[in-house]
């Protein structure tokens, strides 16, 4: 197990380095650079000094080399757009996205799995209704859900129509700030978790239906085990296998979905930061964002693989090479 983890960690590290390096390289190749942000009528002196400051006057290889050397000392460069070191910027944005992502994932898992158990094991009008609603939600992309929710929030005023904190907050204590964030959280979380919850519900429902028809379940019922116990202690753990297999991908999808949701609901997370950095060709910021995104994805797939290994011993034998 330890070897497995160590290998995955090593590969994740390599993935992060390659991703951020590729982002850096592609940024050099793309037309225009950050000096375009100075406007088309900036003076030559200003343009040149900016280029020198960010090592853009050197060849791509040499720029990359300098960046890697600094990165090993945990210095990830500076952002042109915000005129400060990259690391705290990305750290804060990543934390915001992580907050959104984790809450959405938990919500989607709880709601999706419990509803799925309900609809998978039973038949009737209510399960049918839930299944249909689920099907509809699965067909709605996060872009549409976030637009709709923002529209409803703006019209009804029940929830803030975007952002993470109110602009009127003045000198908040930690608890007041927390409450403010909690007030702004439901909108993006709903938009992001709704399709995912529907996905989990559908998956759980299907696998529960499969599991319930297995012989060992019948045996348990025949032994006289009460129905709820059969469901939860016997059928459910088996039904988790396909979901675990998909969990890693779900986390990846969460990352790309959060990009759109953050944009529409003005949540100050990694997605919005990456977009702004891309627009401004702020190369070091983009590299750091790409690296963080890669880290999230690596973490997600590793979690997914771990869950899959935990759920299905057969996979454990053939650890990923």
């Amino acid at each position, binding site marked *: 197990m330890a070897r497995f983890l160590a290998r995955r960690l090593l590969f994740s590290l390599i993935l992060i380095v390659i991703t951020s390096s590729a982002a850096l390289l592609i940024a050099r190749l*793309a*037309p225009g*650079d950050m000096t375009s942000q100075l406007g*088309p009528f900036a003076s030559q002196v200003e343009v040149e000094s900016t280029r020198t400051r960010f090592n853009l006057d050197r060849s791509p290889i040499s720029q990359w080399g300098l960046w890697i050397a600094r990165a090993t000392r945990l210095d990830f460069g500076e952002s042109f757009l915000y005129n400060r070191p990259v690391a705290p*910027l990305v750290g804060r944005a990543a934390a915001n996205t992580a907050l959104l992502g984790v809450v959405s994932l938990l919500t989607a898992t709880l709601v999706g799995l419990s509803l799925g158990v309900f609809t998978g094991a039973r038949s009737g009008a209510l399960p049918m209704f839930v299944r249909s609603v689920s099907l509809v939600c699965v067909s709605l992309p996060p872009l549409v859900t976030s637009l709709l929710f923002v529209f409803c929030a703006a019209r009804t*005023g029940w929830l803030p129509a*975007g952002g993470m904190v*109110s*602009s009127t907050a*003045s000198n908040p204590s930690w608890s007041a700030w927390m409450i403010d964030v909690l007030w702004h959280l439901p909108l993006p979380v709903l938009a992001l978790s709704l399709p995912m919850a529907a996905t989990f519900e559908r998956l759980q429902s299907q696998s529960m239906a499969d599991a319930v028809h297995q012989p060992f379940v019948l045996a348990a019922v025949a032994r006289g085990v009460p129905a709820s116990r059969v469901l939860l202690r016997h059928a459910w753990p088996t039904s988790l296998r396909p979901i675990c297999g998909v969990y890693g991908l779900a986390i990846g999808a969460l990352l790309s979905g959060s990009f759109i949701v953050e944009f529409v609901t003005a949540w100050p997370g990694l997605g919005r930061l990456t977009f702004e950095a891309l627009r401004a060709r702020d190369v070091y910021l983009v590299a750091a964002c790409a690296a963080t995104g890669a880290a999230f994805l690596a973490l997600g797939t590793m979690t997914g693989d771990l869950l899959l290994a935990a759920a299905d011993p057969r996979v454990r034998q053939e650890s990923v090479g």
Partner: protein
Amino acid sequence: MGTATAPGDLVGTGPFVLREYQPGQRLVFDRNQKYWRKAENGDALPYLDRLVLELASDQNAELLRLQSGALDLTHSELRSDDYIPVRRAEEEGKLTMVELGVAPDADAFWFCLKPEKKARDPRFAFVSKREFRQAISHAVDREAFAQTVFLGEAVPVWGPITPSNRLWFSPNLPRYPFDVAASRKLLAGIGLEDRNGNGVVEDKAGTEARFTVITQQGIGYYERGTTVLREQAAAVGIALDIVPLEFSAMVARLLACDYDAIYMRPVTTDLDPAVNLDFWFSSGSAHLWNMNQEKPATEWEQRIDTLMGEQASVLDFQRRQQIFTEVQNVFAENVPVLYFASPRLYYAHSRRMRGVVPSILRPIVLWNADSFSISSAR
């Protein structure tokens, strides 16, 4: 001292003091207790205790927050698409809408006229002739342009100075009224005719008058403007292919003169032309159609150089106006840049704000932030 300095260490004499800066999100300003200015009646300024600036990346989201009361002010004027929801909010008593008048700048359309880059392009032979650009100016129905692009809320313009710039606007400049026949005659005069019947004019050697127009992606006015322009140019036989590009890519091409034509609105920062010399001088870095020339490429640019040099150094205001009218004349005759319509600007803020005086120039509202106050009365 850069923008990474801690807020507490910044020095200034403004009405507000920076208390907090969250990069990419917001700036929080507190009242400067020692502000030097006082109101007319002797009250201490500023009235506000705190001002928060939020950095919004999406104008749609910003508008929503204004409507729902989360914001008191927006940083730029309304778009014509936003008129209806804001009007409705005004009728419901939530917002106040202000009409600012005609904008000081207009959407511009120009070809790259740098001989060093374009001399070997066969189309340059006719693009560099003023009759070609005059013909395009004739081909555009500016009234229809204003109606379609700005939903009627715009005035036709023919030059870089708009009617709202009262001190410097000259109404008696040469204009090119909408006249398709005149346009075609001008084109025929420089040898451009549709010889093969495909709807696009060519010169004697068969080079078609087909151009790629780059513009900035994502701005409704530009998209509508280029659509109308393309249709009206097609009616006289000039084919324009519109390519919306992302801002940085567009700027890169602009600086390298790596384009046929561009459609965009360069923002005016000041009304006095002597402050915009980088646009008027041929050596200027904002001389859109041929930037940073060492020597003026054409005789009329030389003339403008001389005139503007005088205009910027003479002290007598009347004389300056006379000279500048002459400059505008030369500009209008040679039409290096075409202008079509200048929009009327609207602004909206929350009901409770008092003392807000929006202006046409930027910053639209924050220029008198020390006089803002909040009232609970309606």
